[in-house]
């Protein structure tokens, strides 16, 4: 397993979330942006009569690719190499960083341009390059905003979604030395264009990510909205694409499905404005040298876990983030990873280590909104529960975990719940024991220990003095029938 990234902290989700919940500006920005994207997504998904069939097909294609990943990766390597590309295999983040830096240094480049690579965020590439005297320039508009703002991405499709226009203007004014810059979209766009054009024309090495690899012809595919990617992919002499091993599709025609579902799910567009698909190198057209770095970095163990394997079907549309009521409140930074939201809550703990991400599987109310929108039908709630099971199992291996309040409470509850006698006894004990907590209003307004989390914002109804089962027993001993029940049962209050 790779080391945790240094620029993401080890804070627990509840701890990080508490801080973000206090930032009303971020919450307003996140809520506004996710509402807008969600509405667009629902509109363009709703217009497809075969949406469910497309989800089913996308899921089947991705599942099949993962079942035969070893074969398809080798097939991709063969076809990419035949087309003039070079394929590198990176076991972990350190190896990928070393390969990419080596390629850059071989060309004596001191600067690189970057596009569409959240995977480079996963491996901490920018920090590694900077530490070795290479300056990376992000060219995706949102990632540029994040980089110039010395910030972290909060979303992997819309990385600067937590910033509003005024904040972007301030960053550009400061970092691009444009004190007079306005905050109209055209102003900001023109500033970014002038800033980036100079770099496209001057810098000779580019690093990209990829949306998909195609095994049967060695093609690489990137979809985007700005055209900045197209510049990065075509102007430099050397192109290095960093790609997670799970992103391979068997056949070119598989793109027919995912290129319908990805843009609709990601940005609410029927099709992306720019769809770049290329194979190897071509004389006089595009980069002279093309490298693909295939990254494992914790993916193989996920593949080996039958319950969690579906995590790797993900095509990174981020629809689950936009639909998630937890993400709506906290935004992405609370997840302390390049992959936030529901998919991040299952991917991050598996990619890095359960130690780093042990609170992430619990960062969900299991409401199921993520599964409902997922274009490849990843049952995220099911994987979350599976990972919670692993967290509990790990916990129970330590003495502290065994004696911890959660484990003791859950063991006791399981003992009580597997017998009606014990359960009835517990009810009667609860009815008595609660008396010290019940206020004059008949409600519990303050609870101790871990239960205090409930009562910080919520009252709790006190246990009524008669449980349903006691009422039923009384009714039966009275020879209870329908009329008796009707008399005893009061109307809804």
């Amino acid at each position, binding site marked *: 397993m790779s080391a945790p990234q240094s620029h993401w902290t080890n804070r627990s989700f509840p701890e990080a979330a508490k801080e973000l919940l206090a930032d009303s500006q971020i919450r307003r920005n996140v809520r506004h942006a996710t509402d807008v994207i969600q509405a667009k997504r629902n509109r363009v998904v709703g217009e497809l009569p075969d949406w469910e069939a497309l989800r089913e097909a996308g899921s089947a294609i991705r599942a099949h690719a993962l079942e035969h990943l070893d074969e398809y990766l080798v097939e991709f390597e063969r076809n990419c190499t035949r087309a003039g590309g070079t394929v590198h295999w990176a076991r972990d983040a350190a190896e990928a960083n070393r390969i990419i830096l080596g390629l850059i240094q071989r060309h004596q480049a001191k600067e690189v341009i970057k596009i569409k690579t959240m995977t480079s965020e996963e491996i901490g590439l920018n920090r590694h390059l900077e530490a070795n005297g290479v300056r990376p320039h992000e060219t995706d508009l949102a990632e540029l905003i994040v980089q110039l703002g010395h910030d972290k991405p909060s979303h992997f499709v819309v990385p600067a979604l937590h910033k509003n226009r005024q904040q972007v203007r301030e960053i550009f004014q400061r970092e691009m030395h444009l004190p007079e810059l306005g905050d109209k979209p055209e102003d900001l766009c023109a500033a970014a264009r002038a800033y980036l054009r100079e770099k496209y024309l001057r810098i000779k090495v580019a690093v990209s990510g990829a949306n998909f690899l195609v095994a049967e012809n060695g093609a690489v595919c990137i979809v985007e909205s700005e055209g900045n990617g197209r510049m990065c992919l075509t102007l430099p002499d050397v192109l290095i694409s960093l790609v997670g091993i799970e992103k391979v599709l068997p056949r070119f025609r598989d793109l027919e499905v995912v290129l319908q579902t990805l843009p609709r799910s990601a940005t609410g567009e029927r099709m992306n404005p720019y769809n770049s698909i290329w194979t190897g190198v071509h004389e006089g057209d595009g980069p002279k040298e093309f490298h693909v770095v295939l990254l494992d970095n914790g993916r193989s163990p996920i593949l080996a876990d039958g319950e969690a394997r579906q995590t790797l079907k993900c095509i990174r549309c981020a629809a689950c983030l936009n639909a998630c009521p937890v993400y709506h409140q906290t935004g992405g930074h609370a997840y302390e990873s390049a992959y936030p939201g529901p998919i991040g809550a299952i991917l991050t703990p598996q990619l890095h280590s359960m130690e780093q991400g042990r609170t992430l599987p619990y960062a969900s109310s299991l409401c199921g909104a993520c599964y409902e929108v997922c274009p490849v039908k990843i049952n995220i709630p099911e994987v979350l529960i599976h990972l919670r099971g692993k967290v509990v199992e790990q916990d129970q291996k330590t003495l502290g975990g065994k004696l911890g309040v959660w484990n003791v409470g859950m*063991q006791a509850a399981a003992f009580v719940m597997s017998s009606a006698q014990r359960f009835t006894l517990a009810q009667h004990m609860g009815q008595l024991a609660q008396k010290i907590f019940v206020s004059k209003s008949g409600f519990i307004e303050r609870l101790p220990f871990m239960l205090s989390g*409930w009562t910080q914002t919520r009252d709790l109804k006190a246990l009524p003095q008669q449980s349903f089962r006691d009422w*039923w027993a009384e009714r039966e001993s009275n020879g209870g029938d329908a009329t008796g029940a009707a008399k005893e049962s009061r109307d809804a209050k």
Partner: protein
Amino acid sequence: MRISLFITCYNDTLFPETGKSVVRVLERLGHTVEFRKEQTCCGQMHWNTGYLHEAVPIIRHFVGVYRDAETVVAPSSSCVSMMRDHYLKAAEMAGDAKLAADVEALLPRVYEFTELLVKRLGVEDVGATFPHKVTLHTSCHSQRSLHLGDIPVRLLNKVRGLELLSIENPQECCGFGGTFSIKNADVSSAMLAEKVRTVLNTGAEVCTAVDNSCLMHIYGSLHRQRTLVRTAHIAEILASTGGQA
């Protein structure tokens, strides 16, 4: 029909009125309700919190209690979704083929309360009167696991005197999520604040749902804020004939 009531552990303990209402509605429709005293819990709290092995004996107990029941009803969509979404997996995890077979045989006869009324019994008008302004919280499991769709609305639309008010973002979770509300109390509270704001915006006197878990959460905040809006399980509205507030 002979219908066996699985009251669920928290309704048994905290919301006996809901159970009484289920009995009242079903008996009014001419059915016989039985209550098996051996029942306890569906195992959801353990399963969803990651105590997977601890949930298995509870699941086994449930299946043992109801194995021979003709029809089982539970006034909780989340408990029924626990059974449908996870019981088979739990049996497989435990390597218990007998339990898996029993689960497969039993589950087609287990219904959530409103689902039983509309889908199994074919009833929409249960003869209720409830002259109040009501809004419906569509709980997550009722929509996304049981796919109840407009079943609760159809039942409420047939209640005399009831005015059903629509709510903003009905699909969004109230933030309860079982132990989520304690493990992530701050995020849960933020989600609840938003839900309660939309409930209050409807102008309803009563917020209803097919799950008391969500309602307990929502009322926890309504009560803390000293609002006059009440919550009532849909069974209590459907049982009401006098229409007292």
